[in-house]
């Protein structure tokens, strides 16, 4: 079953006929061609597919396209501020907050969600917020460092 949905993706309006059972993750990657969002586990455990849906971070591997009419979606491609990298992206680069990089888009989206709510998180608060984002290279120390440095950058802006 197909239906027409209208939604905004990174600030642009999109109207499309989509199968209602198509996952948001697949809609983004395979139909629209926006491939920054990654699939890890496919069952909501790893957070690699994290996007913002109506302002809140969610696992795009568990959202059906049929649910999306009127939705506002922001992916990793929408994180940049104009041509500039977002401070969170800058500090992940600077601190080596990525090894293979596969979990990074999800880590960045979730870090942004945390810093939007809490501009000065403690290490424990960062680990709590990133609990649903798994890194199989296990480079968590530098990821936590990068979030702390991004928080400092954002506070001093």
């Amino acid at each position, binding site marked *: 079953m197909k*239906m027409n949905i209208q939604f905004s993706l990174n600030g642009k309006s999109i109207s499309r006929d989509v199968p*209602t059972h198509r996952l948001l993750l*697949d809609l983004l990657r395979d139909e629209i061609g926006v491939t920054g969002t990654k699939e890890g586990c496919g*069952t909501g455990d790893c957070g690699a597919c994290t996007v913002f849906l109506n302002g809140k*971070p969610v*696992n795009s591997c*568990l959202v*059906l396209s049929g*649910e999306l009419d009127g939705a506002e979606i922001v992916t990793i491609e929408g994180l940049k501020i104009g041509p500039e990298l977002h401070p969170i992206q800058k500090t992940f680069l600077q601190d080596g907050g990525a090894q293979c990089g596969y979990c990074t888009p999800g880590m960045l989206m979730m870090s942004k969600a945390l810093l939007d709510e809490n501009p000065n998180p403690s290490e424990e608060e960062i680990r709590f917020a990133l609990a*649903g984002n798994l890194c199989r290279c296990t480079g968590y120390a530098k990821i936590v460092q990068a979030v702390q440095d991004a928080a400092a950058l954002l506070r001093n802006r």
Partner: protein
Amino acid sequence: MKRTEPFEFYQPASLQEASRLLKENGPGGRFLAGGTDLVIAMKEKGLVPKYIVDLKRISGLSGIREQSDGSITIGALTTMREIETSPLITKKYSFLSQSAAEVGSIQIRNRATVGGNMANATPSADGAPALIVLNATAKIVGANGDRTVPLEEFFRGPGQTVMTSDEILIELTIPKTGPRLVGEYIKFSPREMMDLAYVGVAVAYNLGASDKKCEGVRIVLGAVAPTPLRAKRAEAALEGQTLTETLAEKVGQIAAEEAKPISDVRSSADYRRAMVGAMTKRALLNAAAGPAKSWVERRERRY
């Protein structure tokens, strides 16, 4: 990961319409709320619903409200994250927000709803024990009208509730509680987050201001029986008594005897039973000590 099969997809604008869709289309349909159980079951376990009825276009099914009689209503589509962060719930029943915070990740809790957590009736559902110790009731709407049942009687077995296929859980109500109510929910699992409860224990009681006697004691166990289980003999052992560490230990042992755990991939029945004892004791003592200030403190005081 496997993809879901196609299905008919409905988005009714009213409860009557939703209920009618189920009646007209017959068996094989599923209601969709947050999808964090349903979509996973479709992808991982090969569940193929004939059709899906998305409840999210029906207005008035989400939100947390304090009523004039002092009760609190929680709409079935309220997310676990909303319960976790609600100023009202955090202030009055911090152990209920904590139980919501134990579910999955923030991404999951932004989608998962309290109604789904109840209607899926997983024995380990974190939301259930805390709501049952608060005497919550469930409001159910179906083709044959409304009814309200105590949440304690809502569950019938793993994945089974008292609801018929056309019925929809629309609201949970926590009746007014006294000013001296204290409570705690402890989820016991080896991983700190992103795990199912091996054992869940919720307790609540009114703590006498000067005599420190415990009254209206409620103890509910999760993940150690086919449904959330009230430990009534344990409750009776504490009722009217002053809580001491020795008594908490004894009450924990009685709760352990009342549990009906199974052995599975996560844990043996014996281990679960022993942990019911230890966690009930800790929960009773923690409740008296007051709410944890952070999740680190909450984690530390499980032991």
